């Protein structure tokens, strides 16, 4: 899981172009939206694209997004559970 979390941090930094943020700056248990990284609704769309592009995971119900994208760890757990073999 820790390996996936680190990989995911790098992908999020790249996808969202977080120029001044490093992997170490991201707390895997801190909320991604509102506080923490302070992401917004467009970033949420970018994260949906990231899951589809990098892991082949499509989020069918947008309501699930709130739970999935709560933190880097919740994202990693969702990917682990849904990643296509």
């Amino acid at each position, binding site marked *: 899981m820790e390996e996936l979390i680190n990989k995911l941090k790098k992908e999020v930094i790249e996808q969202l172009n977080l*120029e001044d943020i490093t992997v170490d700056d991201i707390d895997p248990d801190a909320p991604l939206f509102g506080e923490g990284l302070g992401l917004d609704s467009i970033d949420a769309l*970018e994260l949906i694209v990231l899951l589809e592009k990098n892991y082949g995971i499509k989020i069918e119900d947008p309501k699930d997004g709130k739970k999935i994208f709560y933190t880097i760890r919740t994202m990693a757990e969702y990917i682990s559970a849904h990643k296509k073999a």
Partner: protein
Amino acid sequence: MTAYINGTGLISPQKTADISGFLNDIVQHQADYFKCIEPDYKTYLEPLTARRLSRLVKMGITTAKICLADAGCSIPDAIITGTGLGSLEDVEGILERIHDDSVPISPTPFMLSTYNTISSQIAIQLKCHGYNSTYVHRSFSFESGLMDAMMLLEEKSAANVLVGGIDEMVPNHHALIRRLGHWKMNPVDNLQLLAYKTPGAVPGEGSGHFLLSSQNNEHSYATIRGVKTFYQPESFEESKDQILNFLASSGLNPEDIDIFLTGINADTEFDPIYFRMAQDVFPEKPLAWFKHLSGEFYTATLFALWTAANILKRQEVPPVIILKYKVQKEVRNILIYNQYRNVHHSLILVGKK
């Protein structure tokens, strides 16, 4: 009518973002096209804002902010932008995603790929809820924006209008247009540009903003006394008549023009129009050019307007722009004449404030 230029901001292939200088440290480019010398955007944009913006949009917002600071104006009444090609980088990004079916389309380049992104992003940054418009008319784009701004001032719908022009060059677009023969085939040295006796221009890019106002103040650079465009003239004589009529409409004749600032771009096919016009209409008047500094792009006249405004304010003429006949006296009127491939012709008359 007259509009005062009360502030300017320019990012170009020269060091123009720093408004304290005026073409006194010329940048040499040896390249297929001339890229902008960009400032550190962190000075002008919050990192969280900047991360989602492409280079062109960052350039646009930055020149808007430089211009407004120069003019001492926090929020203009209207924002107008002219662009020939918009944000090419974002358009290419979205087209590549569409072409590659296996990759989902990312929202950011999609949102930023529209032509009016620049004007709207400036408005969002400034929290300006006034008139907002974008003109996309190839080489008339910037001039159309100027005309709109002057009409807003004339009808008193606005007192301060932020008007700008912006275009970028990217490798794919450069390669495509070069295949059409519009660009030179090999890299060139901008400081030796007229030595290349070949057809085709050398592309460049730039972002420039001007605060046009109905009132003169201590920030004023110069006045725009008139703007005119004409399309695909049938003959040289028609172009000549257009210029003479344009000057007459401002109560001037060719003798009143102190500098004839032209869009000469080292294209052997179309430059003769400028040289003949200079000889026939403005004999022995200082002949100037600017595209060895800016390169050719649809809104390149923004560089000429910035140059003219600075000359008139400072009463300094950078030697690098003069091709023929030194300026011997006070500069009161500068005529900017640009034409792109003898199709889109434009005239901007700039006067001392």
